[in-house]
């Protein structure tokens, strides 16, 4: 029999026939490796995920009227939208703003496509319900506070035609006649923590009915799932004499900063977990060496040089490291998948390269953790430990 074969036979016997002790170390390594491979998997997948995810923080592109005098119609918007690939367009929402009055307070009313806001503004938090018909409106929280409004309350919304052009000759009577009113109930209060809370929202048709005319679209928000370059490309493609497209900068830059922070976090968490793994393996190995002092003494009495003792314990440790790394790769993938499914709602690719990398890191961490305990094994004096008691 070859010497190497006996070596393997000894260290595997030690691992498999003395399971309980080694199981603790194996578990520690496997958990460390799980966190390592899991976080790295998530980390590499996150930019892709974040692309879709960041769109959840609002639209990343706007269509604005190219000129103030030339109202933009829905057809113009759709013309621009047609330049964007169908599978990349998550949604678009047109907005038309008019000043109305409730209880003599001037308030901005936005006519929009309520269903579409769910796609382009998924972060909207609504106390109550989205409006479902033309008798309802969504009320920004700030407005609700001014009006002391609650979900279910009804208000008379007044719109004055040509309010700005009101000429001096017109009497109050005439002005009153120009007013149109609608009674709308509050289906829900909108909370965003931003400017949206200063508006009330209805369906576009409600605003058109109130004003009695088809006004121009003041703004369309678009959510497009593509890279930064892709967005720039669309910027030039969708521009026309009617529409001036713009990118929403806030999202683009925060995407990058979130990624950097995430990278730091992954690095930090992984280092901490690997350090903990190392401590746990070192502790276990120290206990193992103490537990096996007699055996070490015996091996030395049989003529084992220190190098052999080191090799055997390191061999056990490294085998454990490799095995723990392998186990951790599998569990890490499961972990990453679970996180991805639950946080990002999408599956994740298995990166085969991560298996050898995780195993190598596990072996390295185990080797480092074993150095001190294994060196202490060579200090064993066979004459003392083998003495009868």
């Amino acid at each position, binding site marked *: *029999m*070859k*010497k190497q*074969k*006996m*070596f393997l*036979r*000894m260290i595997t*016997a*030690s691992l498999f*026939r*003395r399971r309980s002790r080694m199981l603790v170390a194996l578990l520690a390594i496997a958990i460390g490796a799980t966190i390592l491979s899991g976080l790295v998997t998530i980390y590499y997948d996150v930019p892709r995920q974040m692309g879709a995810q960041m769109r959840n923080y609002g639209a990343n592109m706007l269509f604005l009227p190219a000129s103030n005098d030339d109202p933009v119609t829905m057809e113009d918007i759709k013309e621009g939208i047609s330049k964007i690939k169908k599978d990349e367009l998550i949604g678009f929402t047109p907005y038309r703003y008019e000043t109305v009055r409730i209880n003599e307070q001037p308030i901005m009313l936005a006519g929009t496509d309520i269903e579409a806001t769910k796609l382009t503004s998924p972060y909207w938090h609504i106390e109550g319900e989205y409006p479902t018909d033309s008798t309802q409106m969504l009320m920004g929280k700030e407005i609700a506070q001014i009006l002391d409004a609650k979900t279910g309350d009804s208000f008379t919304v007044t719109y004055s035609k040509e309010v700005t052009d009101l000429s001096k000759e017109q009497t109050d009577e005439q002005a009153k006649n120009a007013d149109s009113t609608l009674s709308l109930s509050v289906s829900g209060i909108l909370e965003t923590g931003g400017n949206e809370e200063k508006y009330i929202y209805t369906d576009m048709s409600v605003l058109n009915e109130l004003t009695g005319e088809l006004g121009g679209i003041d703004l369309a928000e678009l959510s497009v799932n593509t890279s930064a370059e892709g967005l720039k490309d669309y910027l030039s493609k969708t521009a026309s004499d009617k529409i001036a497209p713009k990118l929403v900068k806030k999202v683009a830059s925060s995407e990058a900063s979130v990624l950097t922070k995430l990278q730091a976090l992954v690095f930090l968490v992984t280092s901490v977990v690997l350090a903990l793994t190392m401590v746990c393996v070192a502790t276990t190995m120290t206990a193992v060496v103490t537990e096996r002092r*007699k*055996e070490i*003494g*015996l*091996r*030395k*009495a*049989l*003529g*084992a*040089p*220190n190098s*052999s003792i080191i090799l055997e314990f390191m061999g056990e440790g490294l085998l454990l490291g490799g095995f723990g790394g392998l186990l951790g790769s599998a569990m890490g993938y499961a972990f990453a998948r679970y996180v991805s499914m639950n946080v990002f709602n999408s599956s994740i690719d298995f990166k085969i390269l991560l298996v050898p990398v995780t195993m190598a890191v596990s072996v390295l961490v185990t080797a480092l953790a074993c150095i001190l305990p294994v060196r202490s094994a060579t200090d064993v004096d*066979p*004459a003392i430990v*083998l*003495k*009868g*008691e």
Partner: protein
Amino acid sequence: MSLLEVKNISKIYGSLKALDNVSLKVEKGDWLAIMGPSGSGKSTMMNIIGAMDKPTLGQVILDGKDISKESSKSLTQIRRDKIGLIFQQFHLVNYLTALENVMVAQYYHSIPDEKEAMEALERVGLADRAKHLPAQLSGGEQQRVCIARALINYPEIILADEPTGNLDEANENMVIDIFRQLHKDGSTLIVVTHDPEVAEVAQKTIVLEHGKVAREVINNEK
């Protein structure tokens, strides 16, 4: 030239002389028993002869070489090449089978040879227990595995410190029989024992007291 010559050795622990100016000669093929009360220095003597310890004073010449001042590294090599150890507590590796325990000694000495290890187990009557773990063996069986392990590399000297201390009468007799056979085959044996029955089968018994050789008894061949 004697196989082993111990010249005026002393082992001193602080104010205690565990061995006090002891001299001793062992020829090839000798069977020596060492007796004496507890604390008289028997194990200390065995450790020095077995290259596990060094005397404070004096010389130990094994196979023509003074091993009393060797480095621990070369002592390791001497143990590996020349010494076979048998312990009162057997000291088998508990996660290895009987056969593997014998092969461990081969592994450090030269190369493991399963067939040869099996033959050694046969010599001590344990061929059918080869695949058992120590916990599955009786004390007597464990001691015989320990003996097989001590024999496997054909050592110059077999040292046994209280080999029957943990065994009952039947197993003790079995071990004595194995020693007889080893002696007949020409092995050199040094056996520390409390048991007069184990001592009297040896050719010669020396009695230690307070680290000194108190007397020597030549046993008649039975």
